[in-house]
């Protein structure tokens, strides 16, 4: 994904939702995308699948998948790609599954749309997948409706559906936000197991740095529609460069800081309709300089594999 910029036409004006977002995900790699709610993580994911709402307009950039440009594909070509090469697990499994069809029907429908198999074969595959994702009594689950399953089970069904046609890239949009904490760990473990087993590339979207630390090889930090920093996970936690990343890491609760108030970042997320000029983070940045409000930092390599978009590292002093 290179230089992806995107705008939403809204009744309040044009929202510049993504600003030259650039990153790559290697084969079999888990890439984490972190950021606050509304910073453009989900929109980035939907762009890959070309599922943006009709008021969205891509202004610059391209998205390449296995060497092919996705943004210039026809709708029919995209339909063949969705669910087969690229699939997505959504945030809220309770509303992401159709309430009036059995989960078996929904998953076999996906299989049969993309592959020439009969209903029995599709059901057999669904049952195998249900077993693989740890659903008890898969035959019963097959005939269940979403409301008859718990949140964790629903998410396991979603994951089975995502894997049903052996995708190369799995986009997981906050897959554990809607389930409770004990289930969260199970779902994450399962995703990582399956990632290794199927050699999946994963784009994991989350606002939880803890999840990133446990699962991702590389991570991108997003702020107000722009990538601030992209780095191998280890490097990011050891040596965060971008002031926003630094504050973000400081705001994590720590056992040795017991009794002290949690650190937070002063100010609030800017409006995307009228974003700050220059670096979008500068109004909240403790190191902000004069030129930060006029010059937009580029995402430059600071050390091997570690890129940051901040004037502090571009040798600008004032």
């Amino acid at each position, binding site marked *: 994904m290179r230089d992806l910029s995107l705008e939403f036409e809204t009744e309040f004006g044009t929202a510049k939702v993504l600003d030259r977002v650039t990153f790559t995900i290697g084969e079999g790699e888990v890439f984490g995308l972190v950021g606050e709610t509304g910073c453009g993580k989900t929109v980035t994911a939907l762009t890959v699948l070309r599922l943006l709402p009709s008021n969205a307009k891509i202004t610059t950039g391209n998205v390449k998948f296995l060497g092919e440009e996705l943004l210039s594909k026809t709708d029919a070509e995209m339909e063949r790609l969705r669910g087969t090469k690229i699939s997505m697990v959504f945030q809220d499994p309770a509303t992401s599954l159709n309430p*009036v069809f059995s989960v078996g029907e929904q998953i076999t429908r996906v299989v049969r749309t993309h592959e020439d198999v009969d209903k029995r074969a599709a059901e057999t595959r669904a049952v195998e997948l249900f077993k693989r994702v740890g659903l008890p009594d898969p035959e019963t689950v097959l005939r269940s409706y979403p409301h008859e399953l718990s949140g964790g089970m629903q998410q396991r069904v979603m994951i089975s559906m995502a894997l049903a046609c052996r995708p190369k890239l799995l986009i997981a949009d906050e897959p554990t936000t809607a389930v409770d904490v004990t289930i969260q760990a199970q779902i994450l473990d399962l995703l990582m197991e399956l990632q290794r087993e199927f050699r999946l590339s994963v784009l994991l979207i989350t606002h939880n740095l803890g999840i990133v630390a446990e699962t991702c090889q590389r991570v991108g930090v997003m702020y107000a529609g722009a990538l601030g920093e992209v780095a191998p996970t280890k490097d990011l936690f050891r040596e965060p460069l971008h002031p926003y990343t630094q504050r973000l890491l400081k705001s994590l609760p720590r056992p040795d800081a017991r009794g002290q108030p949690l650190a937070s970042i002063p100010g609030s997320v800017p409006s995307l309709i009228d974003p700050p000029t220059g670096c979008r983070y500068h109004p909240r940045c403790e190191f902000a300089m004069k030129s930060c409000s006029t010059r937009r930092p580029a995402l430059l390599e600071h050390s091997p594999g570690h890129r940051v978009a901040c004037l502090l590292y571009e040798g600008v002093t004032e």
Partner: protein
Amino acid sequence: MAKRSRRGGTASGAFARFLIRRALLAVLVLLGVVVITFFLARVVPANPAGLWAGVHATPQELASARAELHLDDPLPVQFGYYLTGLVQGDLGVSIRTHNPVLDDIGDKLPATLELISASLLLAVVVGIPLGVYAGVKKGRWPDHLTRFLAVGGVSLPSFWLAVVFEMVFVGELHWLPSSGRFSDVLNIQYPLKTITGFLTIDSLIQGNLIRFGDAIAHLILPALTLALYPIGLVARMVRTMMVEVLGENYVRTAKAYGLPGRLIHYRYALKNAISPAIVAVGLSFAYELTGAFLVENIFAWNGIGQYAFNSVLSFDYPAILGTTIIVAMFYVIVNLVVDLIQSFLDPRIVLTKAEA
């Protein structure tokens, strides 16, 4: 939690209990309808005995008519007579036609049922795809066009439409017969046995294609006139629900898995969006049993609506009561059918759970 009937086991028992409870409820509703209609009909000052015996009746004849109709008994006693007859399936004798009311209704009801079924079939077959299409193309010209058609269908009065249709398709173009359910000549040439009372079905059963074509030709105009309102209603309801449902997460999921648009719209979304339209069709059905009388009148469609209308005009209270009870029964049945369809479409609706 009670399980649904499809799951077998104890569920079918629960389903039977549900049906029994609904049947008991229906009896109560019907009883209420009988009480209200019976006493309301007697409040109206009229002279049933005079109607019964005719204009030139002697005082003796009038007196015997009064005795025969139990008119000299107090009202509660009369009501007792009526209820006794009712539970034996006797709706009394029409004062106007001197036939048993049940025979009259049995005679006219199939004609109306055939007409309403045809018009509501049109409403479903035309209205639902129209609504889906408008919902998918929200804000673009197909949406505006269907809105225009729907508002037109809902607001044009049926008696006016009927007359216009007659003028155009019968008067000018001579494409279709003007009135009645069949042509008299064909009726003599190719007599039909009455099996269901639906001419289209009876002619098909007996393999009489000429009579079938004739029945269809007679059915088109009145059915179309009656259908325009429900077509518009159904189209708008489906459209509104579709717009809502298409914004749901599960529709996005379906798209994210590359399912084809037709499947998403007509299966995944429509099944979630169709419920209000089914209620509307059900209510239209019950309403049009007697509500269609204007259209029946214009097309000389000898149905139950016309019968009820004429009964009211001549204070034929056994007939009024009889048709009211039958129509109320249809309301109850239609409601039950609508509930069953809805629970079949949406597994989250559990009918067998105890209702408050």
